[in-house]
């Protein structure tokens, strides 16, 4: 029904052109059915950024998008072209509540899809808002959400990982993993209102009770928004036992990342973010309780019709806190042992990005810790752009493929696709030839991916 479009300033051009970092010029959401007659065009616009733009220009831009979509539809009814590249900027169109279309430059198309997913996570679908309170409510929700959300988009640092929208899984031995399973099951048993649980360590996922697509966007929210916001207080030493003064309570490091800040304050607010999951199916509204002890974070999701009380939060804290503290130190200890055994303590020799479409698992030795403001990569942006190009090549065919690119100054970029997995390797060897590069990649596969079926 509703269609969203985003315009971005032209960024990556050819090498000869002067490069500007990509920036968001405009972002709008409209529904053509809301103002089909002349003079009513303004009604189509549900959200427009920047809001300061003069009304007629908004209408003109929306009209242009609509015209392009309609025009291209005559040539390809099922797949109208969904991005417009002009000399100065690019526009991406996306119709999220009907079909998603592939767009040429995948990075921003993915960002656009992600915008919608994030909106949906916290607000539910457009359609549901329309049902609940008509266009007025939908506009309010869009305004409230995107006004803030668009500020946090950092288009200039988007890269291959944003295309994948993957999940980084925490490597763990079976026994520790089973301990975590056991912990989760016990918590769900004693806190019977908990519907779903997710468990993360070091910002990496270990368990998701949610379905994959919902977890994908929740993971994005947790790792790029919620967790980074709480890093600073931790560094400032506030992550210390906070309830030592309470007698009879086991000392622990647990605390709420959402919900009440201080459980001893009788006035503490027990407000938790509301999220929407399984929107295609059961359409569930849930409260998101995120609780963390040291590096272990656990998300409890409870039905939104149940309002958590301060008593509930205290009970949760007293049950989960001590156990999660012990578990977190167990995981840490086990992880260090495993690291020593496998000898992976050393810096990775290879710079690579791995992604598996089946379980959304991603792994990157190129990216440093992601911060909300920018993702730090250890390679040149031009190399990152080559990765993006290889990826869009892969997207075009279903067959397994391998692409090797000789880039500037002794850099080689290798892309491999085997079944649903993609691997991108960046090598820098003086005067290396194709055979040597191929051998290097084989070596990498043998050491890093010997336990999966990944064709050489």
């Amino acid at each position, binding site marked *: 029904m509703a269609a969203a479009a985003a315009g971005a300033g032209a960024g990556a051009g050819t090498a000869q052109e002067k490069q500007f970092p990509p920036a968001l010029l405009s972002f709008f959401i409209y529904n053509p059915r809301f103002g089909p007659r002349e003079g009513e065009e303004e009604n189509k616009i549900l959200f427009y950024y920047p809001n300061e733009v003069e009304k007629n220009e908004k209408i003109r831009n929306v009209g242009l998008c609509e015209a392009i979509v309609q025009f291209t539809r005559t040539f390809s009814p099922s797949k109208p072209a969904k991005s417009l590249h002009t000399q100065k900027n690019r526009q991406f169109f996306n119709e999220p509540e009907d079909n998603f279309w592939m767009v040429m430059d995948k990075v921003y198309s993915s960002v656009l899809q992600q915008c919608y997913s994030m909106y949906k996570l916290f607000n539910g679908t457009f359609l549901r808002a329309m049902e609940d309170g008509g266009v007025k409510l939908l506009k309010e929700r869009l305004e409230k959400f995107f006004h803030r959300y668009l500020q946090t988009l950092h288009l200039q640092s988007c890269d291959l990982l944003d295309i994948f929208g993957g999940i980084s899984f925490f490597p763990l031995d079976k026994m520790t993993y089973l301990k975590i*399973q*056991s912990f989760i*099951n016990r918590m769900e048993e004693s806190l019977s209102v908990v519907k779903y649980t997710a468990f993360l360590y070091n910002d990496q996922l270990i368990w*998701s009770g949610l379905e994959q697509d919902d977890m994908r966007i929740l993971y994005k929210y947790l790792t790029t928004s919620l967790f980074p916001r709480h890093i600073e207080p931790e560094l400032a030493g506030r992550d210390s036992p906070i309830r030592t003064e309470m007698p009879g309570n086991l000392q622990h490091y647990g605390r709420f990342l959402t919900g009440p800040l201080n459980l001893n304050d009788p006035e503490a607010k027990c407000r938790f973010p509301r999220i929407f999951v399984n929107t295609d199916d059961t359409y569930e509204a849930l409260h998101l309780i995120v609780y963390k002890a040291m590096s272990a974070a656990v998300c409890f999701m409870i039905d939104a019709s149940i309002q958590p009380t301060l008593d509930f939060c205290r009970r949760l804290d007293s049950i989960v806190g001590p156990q999660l503290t012990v578990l977190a130190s167990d995981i840490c200890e086990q992880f260090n042992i495993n690291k020593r055994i496998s000898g992976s303590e050393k810096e990775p020799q290879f710079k690579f990005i791995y992604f598996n479409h*089946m379980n959304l698992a991603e792994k990157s030795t190129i990216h440093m810790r992601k911060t909300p403001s920018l993702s730090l990569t250890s390679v040149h942006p031009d190399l990152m752009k080559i990765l993006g190009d290889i990826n869009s090549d892969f997207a075009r065919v279903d067959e*397994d493929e391998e692409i090797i690119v000789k880039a500037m100054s002794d850099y080689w970029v290798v892309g491999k696709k085997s079944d*649903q997995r993609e691997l991108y390797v960046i090598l820098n060897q003086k005067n290396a030839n194709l055979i040597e590069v191929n051998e290097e990649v084989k070596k990498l596969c043998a050491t890093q991916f010997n336990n999966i*079926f990944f*064709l050489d």
Partner: protein
Amino acid sequence: MGEEDYYLELCERPVQFEKANPVNCVFFDEANKQVFAVRSGGATGVVVKGPDDRNPISFRMEDKGEVKCIKFSLENKILAVQRTSKTVDFSNFIPDSSQLEYTQECKTKNAHILGFCWTSSTEIVFITDQGIEFYQVLPEKRSLKLLKSQNINVNWYMYCPESAVILLSTTVLGNVLQPFYFRAGTMTKLPKFEIELPAAPKSTKLNFSERDIAMAIIYGQLYVLFLRHHSRTSNSTGAEVVLYHLPREGACKKMHILKLNRTGKFALNVVDNLVVVHHQDTETSVIFDIKLRGEFDGTVTFHHPVLPARSIQPYQIPVAGPAPVTSQSPVPCKLYSSSWIVFQPDIIISASQGYLWNLQVKLQPIVNLLPDKGRLMDFLLQRKECKMVILSVCSQMLSESDRATLPVLATVFDKLNHEYKKYLDAEQSYTMEMPHKFVIAVLMEYIRSLNQFQIAVQHYLHELVIKTLVQHNLFYMLHQFLQYHVLSDSKPLACLLLSLESFYPPAHQLSLDMLKRLSTANDEIVEVLLSKHQVLAALRFIRGIGGHDNISARKFLDAAKQTEDNMLFYTIFRFFEQRNQRLRGNPNFTPGEHCEEHVAFFKQVFGEQALMRPTTF
């Protein structure tokens, strides 16, 4: 006689109570299995001890005369005391209720109360010489309400609390028995039956005593056990125990006769569904198992003792007292003493010594006393604590010194599996409905525990995890479990995953990964890839592991042809021509490879000239 020869023993920790003496009267309540020690009619204290509660109940009551009978209701709620032949006194032991005594007189005029039995925590039966009266006690009102009564001349009565049946001896001879069954406020009269007395009833006076009767549940059924003494007129060689089956519905029926082959004084117990007959004269006991094969004469089954007669294992009375005094050695207990009183099912009381024991069967010694292994198995399989003993029998039969013959082993296996089958059938009919979330949590907990002790997890457990997850469409959970190798790699598991591909496409990848990790499943990997028409991938894989010289060309060419991709077929064909050249110096296929059809197809599509020419050096 070594310790390994005794198959009966007294329990290690008896209930100890103050010995009976002129000022201390001892009572036993069969329903609660409690011993009451009443000193001076209760004025100087009553101590109640049961087998399970190590904390005795102590209280005082006014001495209102000699106590004839004293019993708590079930759960020790109300105490009933009989002091006269007309009345029973009650006092409440419920917290916060009046402890003042209240009294109930029997309804029937001129009747004498023979005794009373509690049938629940608030229901009581008075047995008088003229009938029975069934009351409900209303503790808060401190009164009783008559529920039902029945007039009948009673000589004596017997109560079996396990089945809530009271048996009344009626008629002049006393051998007509009238059972009543009690349940939740109702009293049911069951059909009466007559016990055949051994001698012709010449006398007309009561010669049938309650001492010769017992009631017990054996293999879930209520039996009246009658000890028929040897009579000179009959031609039997000794006393016997006659078992009358008393069903809840229908008439009582004589079923079994246990041949004792001796005479004298006997006492009966029932332990672990075995009838134990103690013989005082020889100070030995024998056991009978009515499930073991006996001699059936068309109406009753005759049984002989399972084992030779043996004494109960000698028992040392632990010397009580403060620690410094107990240095003296323990005193051997006199077994089969005339002061012993036996109660059903398994209780032996020595009132003069102040002990209450439970009788127990020791299975291990029986292994050597019963040479017939088939019969031994039949016997052991019916016992409660049999598993370890059966295992030891099995291992003994295989050991060099005691090796059993194959027919004996076969018999033992059949008997074991006969039981096992019954268990399996029962298990199958026992389908428990549990929420799947709980099922998975339980399985995870079990797998965690197995892992913690480094015990391999059996495939069926993994299968159950997968089945449960798949049934509820929880594929993403399954994926995560596999990702962390919670479900250990195996070929059967990989095949199970393959079969799930149509419901959950990623199962294909998971399966291939697993096969790869197994490293012994390369053939399977090739098959999987070929079935998906990934001919080139299959070939690359097999070449990668160096197995391409041994693969069947025909298999790959078939798969390539099926793809209807001519270029793919060309590539595969050329690969094998090159292999032929390398291995045999000639690119042609040998007849044994059965590739004629593919060569013809190749020629048809690409022309004869496209075939590789033999390289000549």
